[in-house]
């Protein structure tokens, strides 16, 4: 009897162990993903270039092929990528970056310090964000895997400045940089194996299709992935990108099973997609920032009282409610260029005490004399809705507001003409903690948005020169305070990015669609 009981117990234990093992291995499988398959991704924009030095759109797709020295992790700290390590001199005037060994371009040639130097040469001549590196005076290759940068003033955040992919320093082969100089990189060169990333670009028809194939020889970081940084597992055999501009067509393509991932999903269609059992909807944790700029340099808003009146007249929650269901937006009145979540609620309470009576009083006390207030915006559904809400709020406090809508190109150009507008509706992806990046532009002469303030510049310099994180955060906090007091920008909130996926797509998390990017590096299909 005892023997039988022991036998049953043994069988039970073995079964339990086997089952446990099976569950564990399934768990590991699910966590680690499966290799193989094709994923078709549709966004609204076409890829118009793979030149990351100047191109800032669809950076996540460009990053599959081309890579930079460092990237941000989820804590918004610069982490190694093509550079494995770096060090600064004590006076923060010299930075040395050590490059990853064994990295090859897709055509099989090794990546060396000469490629980084040649890429930086071109980047400094024509890169969209080259101005951020104005402190860098010279640079050189020390050996095959070491590059050094010499600065003309101390700079604490150089690795962070390399960490933004769009418009940043991607590394291209030296021969290509020599060939194109400051000109555009030609179509054929993108298809000539000039990247180092986990996928190679096999086909690209602008506006039509881009096809990426797994790079079997990829060498990259091996630490856990987070935001842009970390390991990039190319689970998929192929990624096909097809731009679908019309939102209704994009959604139909997903419903018909013709694509696997679509972005963005209009919030109005959220419920419709959820009703389909084969579709999953992922909503980002951080969204597109909705904000308005007041022109503090010319026109009626040179009067600080009137700028304060606008802030007091605005009810962010009411304005954002026109964007659809509650989960599609969130009140977030911190400046656009912070993702420091600790500020979000606190700042809303501190700086958005909507008070129409106060707003009306401030208008009366100001020099405003009924002049026309020109509100310019690029027309699309979201901008239209929110802008109309703002116009009504401002009219309620006695401002004579006229909305001027135009296409994106016209609006973009108008923003540079300071005598053409008083308020501009803006939106944009959240920028990683680049108060130092964005703020640095404020100190440049000729910047149409700038308002100069000695205290602001003091704290700004603090962010640039401290290596202590607490001190850095304190400086950022002070900069934000001053920005609010300046009242030249009215931050309203986030419009969340909504992504629709077929249910066989795995590995895509809400945080992975932060800052308007979808990280396909660790995504797989079942």
């Amino acid at each position, binding site marked *: 009897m005892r023997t039988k009981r022991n036998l049953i117990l043994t069988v039970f234990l073995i079964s339990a162990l086997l089952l446990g093992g099976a569950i564990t291995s399934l768990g590991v499988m699910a966590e680690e993903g499966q290799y193989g398959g094709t994923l078709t991704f549709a966004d609204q924009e076409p890829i118009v270039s793979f030149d990351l030095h100047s191109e800032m759109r669809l950076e996540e797709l460009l990053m599959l092929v081309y890579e930079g020295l460092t990237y941000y992790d989820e804590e918004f700290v610069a982490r190694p990528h093509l550079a494995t390590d770096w060090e600064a001199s004590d006076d923060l005037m010299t930075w040395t970056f050590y490059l990853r060994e064994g990295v090859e371009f897709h055509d099989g040639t090794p990546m060396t310090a000469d490629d980084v130097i040649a890429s930086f040469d071109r980047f400094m001549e024509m890169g969209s964000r080259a*101005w951020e590196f104005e402190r860098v005076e010279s640079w050189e290759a020390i050996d095959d895997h070491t590059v050094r940068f010499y600065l003309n003033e101390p700079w604490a955040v150089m690795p962070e400045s390399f960490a933004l992919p769009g418009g940043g320093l991607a590394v291209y082969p030296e021969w290509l940089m020599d060939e194109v100089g400051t000109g555009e990189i030609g179509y054929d060169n993108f298809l000539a194996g000039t990247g180092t990333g986990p996928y190679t670009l096999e086909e690209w*028809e602008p*506006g039509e299709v881009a096809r990426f194939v797994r790079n079997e020889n990829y060498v990259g970081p091996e630490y856990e992935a987070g935001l842009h940084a970390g390991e990039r597992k190319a689970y998929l055999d192929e990624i096909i990108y097809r731009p679908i501009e019309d939102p209704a*067509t994009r959604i*139909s393509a997903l*419903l018909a099973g*013709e694509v696997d991932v679509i972005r963005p999903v209009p919030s109005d269609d959220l419920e419709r997609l959820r009703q389909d059992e084969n579709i999953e909807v992922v909503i980002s944790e951080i969204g597109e920032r909705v904000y308005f700029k007041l022109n503090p340099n010319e026109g009626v808003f040179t009067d600080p009282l009137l700028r304060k009146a606008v802030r007091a007249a605005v009810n962010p929650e009411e304005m954002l409610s026109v964007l659809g269901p509650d989960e599609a937006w969130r009140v977030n009145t911190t400046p656009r260029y912070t993702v420091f979540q600790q500020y979000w609620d606190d700042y809303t309470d501190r700086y958005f005490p909507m008070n129409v009576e106060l707003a009306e009083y401030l208008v009366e006390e100001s020099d405003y004399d009924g002049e026309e207030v020109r509100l310019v915006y690029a027309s699309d559904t979201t901008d239209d809705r929110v802008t109309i809400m703002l116009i009504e709020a401002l009219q309620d406090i006695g401002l004579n507001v006229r909305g001027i809508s135009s296409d*994106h190109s016209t609006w*973009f*150009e108008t923003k540079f003409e300071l005598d053409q507008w008083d308020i501009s509706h803006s939106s944009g992806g959240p920028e990683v903690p680049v108060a130092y990046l964005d703020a640095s532009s404020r100190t440049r002469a000729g910047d149409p948005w700038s308002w100069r303030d000695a205290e602001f510049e003091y704290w700004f310099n603090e962010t640039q020169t401290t290596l202590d994180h607490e001190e850095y955060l304190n400086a950022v906090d002070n900069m934000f305070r001053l920005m609010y007091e300046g009242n030249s920008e009215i931050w309203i909130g986030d419009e969340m990015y909504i992504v629709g996926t077929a249910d066989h797509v795995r590995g895509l998390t809400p945080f992975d669609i932060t800052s308007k990017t979808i990280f396909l590096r660790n995504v797989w299909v079942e």
Partner: protein
Amino acid sequence: VYSYIIRRVLTGILTFLLVGIIAFTLMRLTPGDPAHFFVSERATEAQIEQVRERLGLDRTPVEQFGIWFSGVLRGDLGQSMYMGNRPVTTLFFRRALVSIPLILLGTFFSVILAIPIGVISALKRKIKKNSIVDKVLTFFVLFGISMPDFWFGLLLIFFISVGLGWFPAQGYVRPTENIIEAFRHLALPAIALGYPRAALIARMVRSRMLEVLSLDYIRTARSKGIREMSVIIKHALKNTMIEVLSTIQITIVSIIGGIVVIETVFNLPGFGRLIVDSIGRRDYPVIQGSLLIVGMGIVILSLLTDILYGVFDPRIKYD
């Protein structure tokens, strides 16, 4: 007829020049500087100027036109400012391989649908004033005329593609890859383009047929004992063809305009979308080059239509 063709070709050359000037001038008058697409929101004037120099936009408009048009005369329409600097001709003709079959299919669909509807509707109307068939067909026609292309396209996607799964909802397959799939991808867009225009042609055929059927020569033909089908097709319909031909020409031009929207709705990489996308980015060379080619296409179409008039009506002389 040859002297007529030569005169028309000369007029075509003048039109070519005018289209070139208009396309160039309109883009320069439109606000929105292409250089801004290459720089960040916070770029300085100097940076923007550097990009303008790179793109050749720092020259005077006259210089820019001279450089561009002299290239055009040598057969070089320039290069896209984006898209890896690909030549405009390469970009356009690759897209034309999508758009031209779509235009032809859309036109074919509209004519195939319109002529029988117009003829039947007219005959029924002729026989009985309040004929049900005439009323149904008139409703069909009015419905088509009232329906915007994009809306009809979306309905087709929703019901036929997503609902029934008979045709793809979007995208394109090149005929060289799979001819049947290529046709399946173009079928719904062609219907979306063809139906509203079919309605217009049907209305034209109906009214012209009603007019012709009342003429004496039709009565004479019938009294001679000629078969009714022969009277309708050989005698009546042929005499409506001059007007129908003009309408078809206008229809093709209208379809060329319509593909801009339909290619977006069905996500087809045709030249309509190329032009619209390029306008959004202010990609001057692509816009100018594409408008020039499309303009010339329409001039050639108009010439062919004029020549066809003579085929249907021998009384037309070209002197």
